[in-house]
């Protein structure tokens, strides 16, 4: 049932996709045998990922990799349903990948070609594989708490021990996980998320949340301006604010690892080459380039054995083995399936 519903939705979106389809027809004529197109999130981020991943991949395989930017799953859905796939490999958030897998939008990954050794099995899926991680971590103002800030979500929830203004993400993803950890759930047994328990835990902290941030930039601004005394936010945003002079610290303790993943949209012209490029891109050696350009951790733990990541740098990275061990992975497959239900309850929770 859910599949047919989403498929229908996909078809509906397909009709809006005419301009995409037309440009696809124009693009196919220029398609060369040794050329693929990838898509990522644009901006500074894509620039960094291009230098770290796609340019080296193209060089090593001796192919041309063109780049485009994506707005997410809706773009992929439009291309696949219009049967005019522009991208050989696309980057998506982990719940986007999970949703796309459910909808049947991706080609199966050939794990004889793509080596999945070194990845957490949770993010090695039939049609997608993780390639980097960011983390939702606990940060605190050193003006307020010095070095002794909250070290767990239970501390974050403890308003007597750590009085002060707090901020969390304005979305159930990552926050429900934090709420369950605060309530004492074993990190290894987070999933399937117990929604009742999570929202009950959130009710306790809600009166003490001054701001629910809705974009990474907003979280960074809250940290930079000292607007809140502690925050659950993405590590790259907090570290950027600290580099710019914010009096803040963060810990990887009980951080929540969120993957971005790669998938091959269904119906690509050059599937074999796409598979080869994907295999190269997620190899430990190539993934190990990421930290040179941007504060994201490679998804393959073997990247840390390549010698390309100096130990000093590794200490600051969320996926370095000693840091990863303190954190829990956010399960995109769960969110792909239960996201809408969780967000409906979230709307209720936040408006009461």
């Amino acid at each position, binding site marked *: 049932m859910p599949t047919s519903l989403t498929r229908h939705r996909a078809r509906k979106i397909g009709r809006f996709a005419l301009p995409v389809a037309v440009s696809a027809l124009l693009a196919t004529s220029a398609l060369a045998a040794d050329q693929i197109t990838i898509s990522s999130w644009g901006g500074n981020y894509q620039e960094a990922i291009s230098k770290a991943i796609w340019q080296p991949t193209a060089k090593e395989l001796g192919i041309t990799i063109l780049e485009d930017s994506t707005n997410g799953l809706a773009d992929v859905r439009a291309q696949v349903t219009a049967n005019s796939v522009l991208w050989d490999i696309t980057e998506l958030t982990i719940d986007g990948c999970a949703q796309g897998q459910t909808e049947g939008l991706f080609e199966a990954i050939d794990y004889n070609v793509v080596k999945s050794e070194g990845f957490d099995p949770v993010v090695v899926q039939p049609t997608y594989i993780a390639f980097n991680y960011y983390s939702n971590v606990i940060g605190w103002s050193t003006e307020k708490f010095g070095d002794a800030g909250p070290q767990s979500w239970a501390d974050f929830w403890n308003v007597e021990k750590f009085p002060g203004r707090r901020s969390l993400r304005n979305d159930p993803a990552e926050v429900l996980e934090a709420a369950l950890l605060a309530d004492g759930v074993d990190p290894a047994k987070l999933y399937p998320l117990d929604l009742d328990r999570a929202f009950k835990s959130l009710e306790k902290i809600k009166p003490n949340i001054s*701001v629910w941030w809705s974009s990474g930039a907003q979280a960074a601004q809250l940290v930079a301006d000292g607007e809140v005394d502690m925050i659950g936010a993405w590590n790259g945003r907090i570290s950027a604010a600290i580099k710019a002079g914010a009096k803040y610290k963060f810990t990887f303790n009980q951080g929540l690892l969120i993957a971005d993943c790669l998938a091959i949209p269904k119906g690509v012209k050059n599937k074999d080459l796409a598979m080869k490029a994907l295999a190269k891109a997620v190899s430990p050696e190539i993934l190990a380039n990421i930290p040179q350009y941007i504060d994201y951790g490679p998804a393959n733990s073997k990247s840390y054995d390549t010698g390309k990541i100096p130990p000093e740098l590794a200490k600051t990275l969320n996926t370095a083995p000693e840091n990863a061990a303190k954190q829990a992975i956010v399960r995109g497959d769960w969110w792909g399936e239960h996201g809408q239900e969780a967000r409906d309850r979230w*709307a209720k929770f936040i408006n009461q």
Partner: protein
Amino acid sequence: MAPHAAEAMEGDARRERLRLLALSSPAFLLVFVVLLIPVGWLFFLSFIDKDGFTLSHYARLWQNDAYFEIFRVTFLSSFLVTVLTVVLGYPLAYLLSQLPRRAAIIGLTVVLLPFWTSLLVRTYAWLVLLQRKGLVNSTLMSLGLIDEPLNLVYNMSGVVIGMVHIMLPFMVLPLYATMRSIDPGLMRAAISLGAPRRKAFFTIFAPLSLPGVIAGSLLVFIYCLGFYITPQVLGGGRINLVSMKILENATIYSDWGAASALGVVLLVVTLLLFKAIQMIVPVDRLMGRS
């Protein structure tokens, strides 16, 4: 002879009407393409799912009481902003309307000045002023007026302050236009016949300026119902408006049905509200359409 002349005149009139219609057809076409078609399409989508006709999108809104609260907060904030812009805008527009034209034009330019700055910049400027370590709080604290920073932003007050600032020109302009067109002789006549200034103002000027108040209020209120960026930034996730839910449904879930249903409900509730207002206040007569 006479019937022929009448026919000819009628023919002329018909040609005249057609010519007028032809001249205004580009405008009609534009309204049709950018307004009627999308709204009709929105309406259609809100009743459709995989099996054809459905009320499920509306049922979902009805069953989740969060949506009731979201609509309540949307209308409440729009109402507050409208009232405050009237309170702030009316004296300002009155002052401008009493000034010599040259001075009034300078005053109006100052009112319009914020339009030269992007909405986003003005919104973030309020954040800089209102936040905990912002200019307002640090000034008040250094003056010793308060000990703890006031919660000026990331709540309803922040949203309303930001929106009032942005909406004020939309109130002042129609008010000014109406007040300028009031014959100053009427006030002078009332005063010369012995009415005190205050009484003359309230019995002559204020009622005559009502069409401006209503036009400005409608403009501000309707604009506020769809406000997105300012409440998003200044509300800190604690103020949730219909526009935000529409965006969430459309972009995160590609759920056009749910997003459309929200849009249709907003439109219908707004229309009903105006019908109700129309029954209490004779809007048509005040606006000069008897």
